[in-house]
């Protein structure tokens, strides 16, 4: 389970949410666009480790996040190994894992309320082109809420299969995960319709 906010006093905890989002966005963009070989991937990984140390979460805190998304990693790596070379599959998966782990760092060191406020303020200028900042903030909050749910689905599926002696095979994981996620999305949409009545 990806845990959320961990109270703390590190510089990352005290930094304004808006600044953190901005830095994260730049980092994520840079990683997506610039990481083209294993050495730059290693550099991005080093930056990530450094950020976790800076937040006082340590290497164990980082490891916990990676373990929490292990089935997502397995799924991604597996699907890509079918079509791509091992090197490319590792690069792609590595990039995504680093970005997810960095996003987790944001929720680990920032209260969601602050996150939403910052998003709300940052999106105000978008009002003119018809974007509702409150909707963007809601979407972000729901994403934060949903990550542990989907990760939980993957663990549940894997546990149930292990209990029945099913070997770890990608297609056995992807299909039920997709079905559960889509059904969850459906149910969640109903709940939002029922509760967010403005």
């Amino acid at each position: 389970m990806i845990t959320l906010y961990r109270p703390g006093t590190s510089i990352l905890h005290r930094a304004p949410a808006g600044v953190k989002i901005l830095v994260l966005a730049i980092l994520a963009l840079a990683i997506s666009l610039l990481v083209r070989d294993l050495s730059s991937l290693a550099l991005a990984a080093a930056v990530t480790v450094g950020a976790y140390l800076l937040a006082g979460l340590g290497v164990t805190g980082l490891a916990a996040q990676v373990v929490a998304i292990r089935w997502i990693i397995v799924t991604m790596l597996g699907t890509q190994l079918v079509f791509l070379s091992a090197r490319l599959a590792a690069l792609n998966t590595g990039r995504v894992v680093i970005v997810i782990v960095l996003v987790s760092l944001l929720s680990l060191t920032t209260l969601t309320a602050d996150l939403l406020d910052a998003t709300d303020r940052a999106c105000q200028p978008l009002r003119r082109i018809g974007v509702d900042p409150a909707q963007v903030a809601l979407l972000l909050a729901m994403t934060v809420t949903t990550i542990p749910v989907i990760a939980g689905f993957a663990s549940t599926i894997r546990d149930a299969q292990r209990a029945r002696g099913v070997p770890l095979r990608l297609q056995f994981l992807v299909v039920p995960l997709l079905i559960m996620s889509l059904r969850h999305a459906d149910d969640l949409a109903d709940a939002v319709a029922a509760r967010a009545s403005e």
Partner: protein
Amino acid sequence: MSGARIEFDDVSVAFGERRALHGVSVALDQRRIGIIGSNGSGKSTFARMLNGLVAPSSGQVRVLGLDPAHQAKQLRRRVGFVFSNPDAQIIMPTVAEDVAFSLRGRELSLAEKRDRTAAALERFGLTEHADAPAHSLSGGQKQLLALCAVLFGDPDLVVADEPTALLDLANTRRIRRHLLDELSQQLVVATHDMRIAAQCDIVLRFENGGLHDQGEPAAVIHRYERDHA
């Protein structure tokens, strides 16, 4: 139409070829309304029409004087809906935030929102989990959270679709107490738990998409159990 709080006039619902409800006419003013019936009989479909999640294919529905098909937004502000799967109703990351979500868009100071949230969590025994990730709660605690969040919006009508489906005895009892004993609002509850149905003021029984029986709870439940004996 008669002007009851909940009115169905010859309502049918079809999903493609499949008829989920047909020819349902009923007027309900009772405070606690129980819905029973076999799997697939149309209970959820009926419940979901009450806040416009499902629209009638033909016929007329009025809830609290509103037409769910065209006034869903106004209606949903006044109707709280508790689903059976507690996982899917949690919208915000932490327990307190999810409850506070029900006050979204209300003109209240931040301090007042915080105080009210704390009081609501207290009433449902969730205070110690206030800042915990909502998904770290147990199934029963999640369902309590869902109910807490829905009641927190102070709806005029509460609709619950199998609110105790995933709960153990203790939590079933708690939900039952909150819904049936402590609630002052009108309640519609679809359930397979006959103890919940027995505590209602009227019970409707659906079979094969039709309203098969209705009336005094003990009598309706007795006939239901007799038919399935």
